[in-house]
């Protein structure tokens, strides 16, 4: 699988961007030239200089340092949200697919219902009702985003359940728990990982969008969407305060999308060859 990832230049480029982002987030205190919260009214709206490579914002805070620290918030929230979404989606998907029957019908009807409203709008309504903040944003997004995973996982479990190796395990006396954990899960997880990497870009957009509306991360926390929202008031005099965070968001999402596309093709090379995606 890794060989295929490396053969795909796009996936490699995406992987590089993603690794670099996590490195920046981890090493933020050493990489950032200044304290991201240090207010210096004397040098507000400073142009780029040796001291402030990307200039300063309305409060004289160093823009580059804030972007560097922003990686911690943006990626941190995405990772936590994805973990929540994956556990909910896998749990419901496995139960639904393995148990079948009435439980399956009820759960899938719920999935259909959530999917019938645009995700962003439902997320907005939930976060808006819970009130602004990182916690309610993460819970709000997780509480709707899992349905897509549940549907994919259920489909996988349905086909796996009928496979020979599952029958064999059962014939050897394995109970349901053992069949699910030891025999079905290992085949489900790689697909879930690919789905997660495909969806992470979308999730970053949703998180920064909610923060941009003032419903997610609150200022002065240097999250990229929140920074963009902060910069809105000065757009006509200092457009760079809007442009820089947006560029960083775009680059991050691009990284996750490239990686996700590449992983999907690597996992399913037949499909990739047919669609001519593997070589690019």
């Amino acid at each position, binding site marked *: 699988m890794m060989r295929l990832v490396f053969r795909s230049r796009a996936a490699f480029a995406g992987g590089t961007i993603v690794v670099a982002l996590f490195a920046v987030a981890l090493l933020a205190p050493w990489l950032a030239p200044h304290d991201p919260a240090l207010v210096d009214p004397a040098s507000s709206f400073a142009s780029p200089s040796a001291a402030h490579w990307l200039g300063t914002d309305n409060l004289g805070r160093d823009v580059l340092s804030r972007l560097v620290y922003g990686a911690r918030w943006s990626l941190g929230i995405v990772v936590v949200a994805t973990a929540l979404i994956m556990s909910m989606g896998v749990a419901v998907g496995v139960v639904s697919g393995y148990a079948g029957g009435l439980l399956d019908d009820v759960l899938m*009807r719920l999935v259909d219902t959530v999917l019938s409203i645009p995700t*962003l709008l439902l997320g907005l*309504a939930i976060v808006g009702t819970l009130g602004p903040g990182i916690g309610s944003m993460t819970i709000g997004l997780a509480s709707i985003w899992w349905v897509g995973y549940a549907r994919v996982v259920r489909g996988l479990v349905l086909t796996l359940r009928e496979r020979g190796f599952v029958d064999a395990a059962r014939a050897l006396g394995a109970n349901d728990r053992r069949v699910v954990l030891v025999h079905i899960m290992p085949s489900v997880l790689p697909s879930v990982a690919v789905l997660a990497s495909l969806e992470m870009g979308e999730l970053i957009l949703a998180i920064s969008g909610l923060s941009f509306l003032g419903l997610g991360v609150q200022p002065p926390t240097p999250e990229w969407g929140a920074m963009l929202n902060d910069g809105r008031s000065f757009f006509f005099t200092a457009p760079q305060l*809007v*442009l820089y965070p947006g560029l960083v968001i775009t680059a991050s999402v691009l990284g996750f*999308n490239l990686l996700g596309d590449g992983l999907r093709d690597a996992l399913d090379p037949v499909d990739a060859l047919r669609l001519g995606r593997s070589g690019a």
Partner: protein
Amino acid sequence: MSLAQWLVRRAGGAVVVWLLISFLAFSLSTLAPGDPAQLMLLRRTGDAPSETEVVELRHRMGLDRPFAARYVTWLSNASRGDLGESYRTGQPVLTELRTRFPATLTLALTALLAGLLIAVPLAAASAAARGTSLDHAARLLALVGVSMPSYWLAYVLMLVFAVMLGVLPVSGSGGLRHLVLPSLTLALGSAASITRMLRANLLDELGSDYVRTARAKGLPGHLVLMRHALRNALNPLVTVSALRFGRLLGEAVIVETVFAWPGVGRWMVESIYDRDYPAIQGFVLYIATVFIIINAIVDLSYRVMDPRVRLGAAATA
């Protein structure tokens, strides 16, 4: 299954989904921190209300009744077109939604149309020239397009066309010129996503047997593409457009806020800022109703247009 039977089944399914959504939408209110009666009094008078005032208003609003009873009342009102009154404006929620929805619909439909006009030729050119630098450029462009936050693209376009070139208004509404930037913002994102999907579909079709047959009998490449592959690849475009339309309504919330476009999206954000729960619930149910209808129409159009679906057993949903 006859069309009539199918319609009855499909309508039944739609009603079940609608009921579930109404329950979800109404349950939202129980998630809300704080007491709506207290909030309302606080908003009206500006200072903390007394205990008796709160109890009295709770009673008048029916908040002291059990959840199930309140839900049934709300649902029966909603099914008769009464979504309650907005805390913020005191106007019926449905009236507020109805006056604003056309603006959002205009925005979303022009964006979808423009997106398709960009995406179809781009995807066709990309698939026809597969593996060339043109194809790579188109794919990279589309990938960057789906990776951009729409609100950021909105500001970039505003900077270029309104501030630097000065050819279009910065924001607001009134006249076609105000529509250009918000719908272009949404159109570019849609174009990128549709291009990606359509290119994959086209390559799928180009690899199929009937295309090989067409080629074998000596049909020139562009005719194979236009007459055979593109026509079949366009079929799923109805579904894609319907899905896209949902995304557009979601993104419209943000883009309307940036461009001060007077649609339901901006109204929803303002309702959230003001914790106007009847407005939020009403909005969710309204949009869900719109979507259930759109999805039903899409399914019906497939059933009528595509003989494989019409005759196949697949069309039981």
